[in-house]
């Protein structure tokens, strides 16, 4: 893939660079020249001042393949990721069968081979996500796994979690926990608070999340040196627990989703099951705490928890509806609108939490936007005002409460693996 990108704003936290009006020449997928008024034989693409950032990485995507191809496939899920501005994702292991053995890993790798989007794979922590016996960690490690998680549920037993940390530490796995004390959340469908009281819907209290975060931090401290990661953190107390653990030098990290810093439990009143998530949408105070956590570095990254479900699983009553929403296509729009354009987070910091930090946690090489480097880039029209609609959905599913939401800032292209994807002009 050869291209001459004209009039870019390069923003690169790794190189500490923020420069406008620059041209970039890419030949065979490698950056060959960066400068003003470049001449090249490559086809020209005028970006009219669009942002060029190191490729965004989404650590938390449900591709559903193998086993639930009616919701999403590796092909449609990576297309959703690319159109959302991601050049890399990590797919979660709650497939059917779960990613508990190297054969499933090979299957996914084969399907994702040659994709514009790099697909990293998360293995399970315990065998078949049952929370009882350890997953075959050596075999998973040998197949290239760097993160393990039973995402979708927590490891309920403290004893098993301790052993996951101890055994997992030997491989320096990122041990990612879905923090939910299961005995407190059975039969619930939304956050426990004023809205659940009003609607009479059984509530999932914040403390059910906090208890597992606290327990795991204590276990991680006790085991010592294990890399512990809180998936889709959603409560103010969990932010504080992670902050305190970090200040004590415990190797803890965490991610938040765009929906958890955008919507509150009030969304359930209008969007019903399309606002049913796990963890649930919380309260305004939680959003404020998450934003402070992003500002002070307590929160390491933004992940989407892209969770496709078919219409019959979402357009149904709230108790039996599936948890989660698709997230890749709205992530950058929501992040820029609610964090950057609103003045809460600097653009540089936003790119760190979207690219630099998740790549570091996944032990991937950092992307540098400089000559001689492989082009792995996310292109964003920073000031583009747009309304998210079904025409922007590349996922096989369309379970999202954000249809009709006005956003500022839109991913317009990605370049990676000697390929490029560009959004057609609306």
């Amino acid at each position, binding site marked *: 893939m050869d291209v001459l990108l004209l009039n870019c704003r390069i923003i690169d936290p790794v190189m500490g660079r923020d420069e406008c009006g620059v041209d970039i020449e890419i030949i065979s997928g490698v950056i060959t020249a960066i400068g003003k008024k470049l001449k090249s034989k490559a086809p020209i693409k005028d970006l009219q001042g669009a942002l060029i950032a190191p490729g965004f990485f989404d650590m938390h995507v449900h591709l559903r393949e193998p086993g639930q191809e009616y919701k999403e496939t590796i092909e449609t899920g990576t297309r959703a990721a690319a159109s959302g501005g991601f050049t890399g994702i990590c797919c979660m292991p709650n497939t059917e069968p779960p990613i508990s053995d190297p054969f499933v890993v090979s299957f996914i790798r084969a399907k994702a081979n040659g994709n514009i989007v790099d697909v990293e794979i998360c293995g399970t922590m315990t065998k078949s996500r049952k929370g009882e016996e350890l997953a075959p960690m050596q075999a998973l490690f040998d197949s290239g796994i760097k993160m393990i998680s039973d995402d979708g549920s927590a490891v309920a037993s403290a004893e098993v979690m301790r052993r996951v940390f101890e055994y997992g530490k030997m491989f320096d796995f990122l041990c990612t926990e879905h923090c939910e004390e299961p005995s407190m959340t059975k039969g619930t469908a939304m956050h426990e608070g004023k809205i659940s009281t*009003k*609607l*009479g*819907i059984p509530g999932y209290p914040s403390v059910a999340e906090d208890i597992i975060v606290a327990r795991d931090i204590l276990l991680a401290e006790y085991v010592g040196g294990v890399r512990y990661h809180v998936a889709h953190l959603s409560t103010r107390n969990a932010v504080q627990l992670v902050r305190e653990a970090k200040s004590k030098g415990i190797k803890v990290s965490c991610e938040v989703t765009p929906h958890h810093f955008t919507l509150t439990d009030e969304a359930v009143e209008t969007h019903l099951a399309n606002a049913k998530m796990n963890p649930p949408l919380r309260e305004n105070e939680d959003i404020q705490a998450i934003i402070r956590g992003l500002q002070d570095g307590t929160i390491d990254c933004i992940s989407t928890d892209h969770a496709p479900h078919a219409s*019959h699983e979402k*357009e*149904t*009553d*709230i108790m*039996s509806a599936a948890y989660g929403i698709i997230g890749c296509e709205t992530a950058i729009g929501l992040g820029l609108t609610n964090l950057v354009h609103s003045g809460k987070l600097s653009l540089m910091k936003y790119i760190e939490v979207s690219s630099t930090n998740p790549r570091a946690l996944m032990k991937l090489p950092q992307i540098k936007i400089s000559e001689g480097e492989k082009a792995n880039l996310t292109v964003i029209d920073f000031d583009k005002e747009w309304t998210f609609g079904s025409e922007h959905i590349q996922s096989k599913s369309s379970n999202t409460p954000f249809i009709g939401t006005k956003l500022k800032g839109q991913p317009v292209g990605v370049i990676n693996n000697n390929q490029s994807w560009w959004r057609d002009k609306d």
Partner: protein
Amino acid sequence: MNRDLLGIRQLSTDQITDLLRRSDGYFLQLNSIDPFRKSSLLDGRTVANLFFENSTRTKTSFELAEKRLGATSVNLSMQTSSLTKGESLIDTVNVICAMKVDCVVVRHSSSGVPQLLRKHLPDHIRIINAGDGGHEHPTQALLDAATLQAKLGSLKNKKIVIIGDILHSRVARSNMILLNKLGAKVTLVSPLTLTPKYVEEIFGVRVVHELADEIKDASAVISLRIQFERQSRSLFPNLSDFRMRYGLTPLRIMETNAFILHPGPVNRGVELDNEAADSEKSLILQQVKRGVAIRMAVFEWLFEDK
């Protein structure tokens, strides 16, 4: 715009008063020498009773109201566990549309199903909520208010005590909203484990956990049915403990002149001892009669000016 009865929350005080007034007429008729005289109000109309959750008295009450108004009733009992995903609600919606019904009476164990049906059904099909999850049971609240008004007159500043499992109760929620709109003073008496968080603030009621003297100066007491399976979820220790704290025992009813209501079915010896359920102060059977009248009034209101 066509009318629906999705919840008490959507009704204005005037609409509530209007519905109660209409129901008085039907109540008189039901008590007259010719209670089974049919009206032709719903002639040529088809009403589908869509009960996803078990119900005997509410369903029967709706059916009676429909038949006395001349409607054709169809019953679709589609009991599904709230956790099984077999039956698609959208498929059900399509079935209803294909049957060309004029009105759907829906009960479901999940909150928000009437609202969901409203989103998916064509505008001309009216929807009546016959109870959705822990959310609302508007016709029950209306019939309770009609029963109370018949005995107490205006409910303004009257103390009404609601006792029991507030957390899971749609009856409590609809009653709190309705009684507030009519100016009554609502006090909830419930164990902390069965009291939804922030209920004082959201519903504008007073909350206490001890029955103590609360019913002495009350005009009426609404006792709620306790589901036995709550016990296995550690929400209360056992039925006798519950009765000791919240049951209307002979001793407790001796101390008050308050009328006694219960949405039924009553667990005798738990929420109400026989002395309470069968006392002169008990309005439980009045509630049942008023139930049919209220549902007739609701149909009249939904289908007028067509």
